[in-house]
């Protein structure tokens, strides 16, 4: 399953390289109080300008986008683990004429933890040894939602600022699953 997810991620990355419009995202990515960072790459799949007439007669105009995104992130939880993870998924974004946007993004990926502490293990003959880079691979589901401001809507500035809350779910983790909230605060730069 992990191999398949990696393959999926690689295909997504290739697709992004070939696409026209692209966004590069960089964010501070903390898990509660544990610091980290995240980089992402987005490609718009569909863009629709929508006009709706409200019951009051007022016009409601917004842009609805679906973006393909691939991301790499990590956080550092002292004494517990460092978690490096890559994800790919679809972001559903709605941007108002003012430049404010909201988005929801489910992503699939894979995580590799690096346990933060000396790890002792035993070989087949029960001889003690120190295991460096001890950690585990986990399939990962990330579901996040957030909002931001796209400066390119009203000004000639190819930048957006955003904040987002994600829930990471690793499964199988020990006898069950593992949940981890992360908070993102970052900027997105339009490459084209």
């Amino acid at each position, binding site marked *: 399953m992990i191999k398949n997810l990696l393959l999926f991620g690689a295909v997504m990355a290739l697709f992004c390289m070939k696409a026209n419009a692209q966004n590069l995202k960089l964010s501070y990515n903390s898990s509660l*109080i544990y610091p980290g960072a995240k980089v992402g790459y987005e490609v718009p799949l569909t863009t629709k300008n929508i006009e709706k007439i409200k019951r009051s007669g007022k016009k409601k105009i917004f842009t609805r986008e679906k973006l393909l995104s691939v991301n790499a992130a*990590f956080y550092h939880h002292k004494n517990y683990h460092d978690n490096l993870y890559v994800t790919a998924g679809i972001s559903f974004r709605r941007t108002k004429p003012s430049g404010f946007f909201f988005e929801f993004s489910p992503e699939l990926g894979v995580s590799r933890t690096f346990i933060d502490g*000396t790890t002792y*293990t035993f070989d087949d003959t029960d001889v003690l040894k120190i295991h460096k880079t001890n950690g585990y691979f986990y399939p990962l589901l990330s579901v996040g939602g957030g909002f931001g401001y796209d400066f390119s809507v009203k000004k000639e500035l190819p930048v957006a600022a955003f904040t987002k809350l994600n829930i990471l779910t690793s499964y199988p983790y020990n006898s069950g699953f593992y949940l981890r909230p992360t908070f993102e605060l970052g900027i997105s730069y339009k490459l084209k």
Partner: protein
Amino acid sequence: MKQIIIILIALLFLAACHNEEITITNNVSDHFYIKNGLNSSMVRVNGNAASKIFLLYIHGGPGGDGFSYRNSYVENNIENRYAAVYYDQRNSGSSQGANNIEELTLENMVDDIEKLITVLKYRYGNDIEIFMLAHSFGGLLSSGFMTTNDNQQLLKGWIYVDGAHDYPMNDSLTRVHLINAGNEQITLGKKVTEWQEIVDYCNAHPNNFNFKESMKYNSMAWKAMSYLKDKSSTNGNDDDELAIAIIEDKIPTTAYALNIQANAVFAEKLIHASYSDYLHKVTLPTLVIYGKNDFVCPLELGEALFSSISSTDKEFVLSDISGHSPMDDDRENFYNHVIRFIEEHTEL
């Protein structure tokens, strides 16, 4: 982006490649992991490692954690004398692992403790003395450890606190205690509806308990102790200490919570677990401490263990004011007995 990912991976590898310098002082604060199969258990060692005396906590649950036994009293009265070892069993507390549900067995947990002791001796010296303090489910696990191979020779003493070495016997005794206390409280007119519900359940489910009934007896035992709480003297600051441990970044909160949930599956496998037939193998000096008001693991369970082991050097202590956790309910008295037991049996 490729370069960024490579740099990130390189940084993580560098961060993960520990070359820990082990120092043995009278005030250590160490943490390390032991990997066995697909599980990595966290071990914290705090206190006076220079004393060469180690008090190893085997926590309850299954799915509890070692660090919750640490509090200001233990820091000031135990860690100043000895090194306290707070060990998270597999799939518990801060332990991490991949898909390892098949490995979650008592046999593997016993093997984990053997390996933990090997690591403690590697880190702190072959001449250290280890006293095992086992509580509740830890009583079942430590009974497995003591009766497997020559494991007891790795220890200087066994402190057995409100343990559950025989689950079927445990449920039967809990039922008897609930009926007796229930009838007494109903006669006294105290919480009559609540107690009547408990007594009715006990009468309707007399023996051959399945997992659901066993869990029900366990939850009624906790309820009963809460109804009778005025009989116990609790220190009452444990919640604060747990909150402080979370804030001070000593407890990975979500892992703790989710590991408790995961152990519910394991608990079902333990429904018939019992070491009663093997306890005669135990010859190690043993201190048994029970709370008189414990409905979860009634004191007769401790008496049965006490009479079953072959140790000639053994002592039974009953705390009149304790429920399931004398180390919290009757803290000073409890640790005075622990210290006395260690001092009587250390050769250092």
